[in-house]
């Protein structure tokens, strides 16, 4: 089971994604993981990370991995539920903080999605809607945007559940939110 959750800044994406992951976890058993792609590089990031961690509460096993999603996935017990937060940061770290290019980044996402299914790991992927403003003039920013959107389209295509979050409320593009609960 795969879910894609996206929306604007401070729209309540993480809270929606966490609630969904907890529902899936209750229905499925196994363990509940939080995969943080954020690097605690400065004071602002450290505060954001600790705020997210406090609101999540107990019961979560936190993994931290800025680039190598397979290394993180290998630590997850089969049958568990994993929340990946977020794809936006991961995409920038792939392009600017690793030796990987777009093709390799996309291949990593494909492998993660198929490996999660093969190991019966329910996956919730969080990202940001950043493509509905005046297109950036800067070629490098456009390259990043094009890469991020390829990732979004791929994950949304694979997902059984796709949710756009507006003002903390879910808008269902795919599925109804009941997936994975009655087993």
């Amino acid at each position, binding site marked *: 089971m795969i879910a894609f959750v996206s929306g604007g800044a401070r729209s309540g994406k993480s809270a929606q994604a966490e609630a969904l992951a907890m529902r899936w976890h209750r229905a499925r058993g196994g363990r509940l993981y939080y995969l943080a792609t954020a690097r605690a590089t400065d004071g602002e990031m450290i505060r954001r990370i600790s705020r997210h961690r406090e609101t999540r509460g107990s019961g979560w096993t936190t993994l931290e991995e800025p680039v190598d999603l397979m290394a993180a996935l290998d630590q997850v017990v089969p049958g568990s539920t994993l929340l990946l937060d977020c794809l936006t940061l991961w995409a920038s770290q792939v392009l600017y903080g690793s030796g990987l290019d777009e093709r390799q980044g996309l291949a990593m996402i494909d492998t993660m999605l198929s490996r999660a299914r093969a190991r019966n790991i329910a996956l919730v992927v969080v990202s940001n809607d950043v493509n*509905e403003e005046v297109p950036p003039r800067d070629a490098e920013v456009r390259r990043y945007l094009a890469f991020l959107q390829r990732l979004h389209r791929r994950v949304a295509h694979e997902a059984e559940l796709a949710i756009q979050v507006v003002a903390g409320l879910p808008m269902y593009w795919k599925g109804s939110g009941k997936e994975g609960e009655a087993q």
Partner: protein
Amino acid sequence: MQLFIGGAYAGKRAAVRQRFDSPRWHSAYDGKSLDAWRSAVEEGRSLVLEGWELWLEAELACEPDNDRIRSRMCDELEAIRALEDALGPRIVLIMLEMGRGIVPMDADDRRLRDLAGWLAQDAATHCEQVWYVWHGLARPLA
């Protein structure tokens, strides 16, 4: 007439291709001007018109008055709609959503953003179906 609107790289073209069988494309990205759409019409075959933000930019460069650009675009939309009614090819408009960010610093970007928003509203009034495309998924708007 149908309108597909969504952000940059949202998957708008693929959404059109899923719903229309081998349409003709009249695209500003191929250097086509808006005026030339008439020569792209082929009876019995659907026609996609895309790259409206480039056509707006071309207007911006030579016309300082936003209202005049808006009304010229409205005339064009009406002509396109009239042709569809008369000849029957299904016409698809693809437009870029660009109004959901911070107000641009650059004055030309602000003009473009305003005109693109008005154009989308005007186009929607001429369409019997409007689709919002989000990360490769499409949903009809009322």
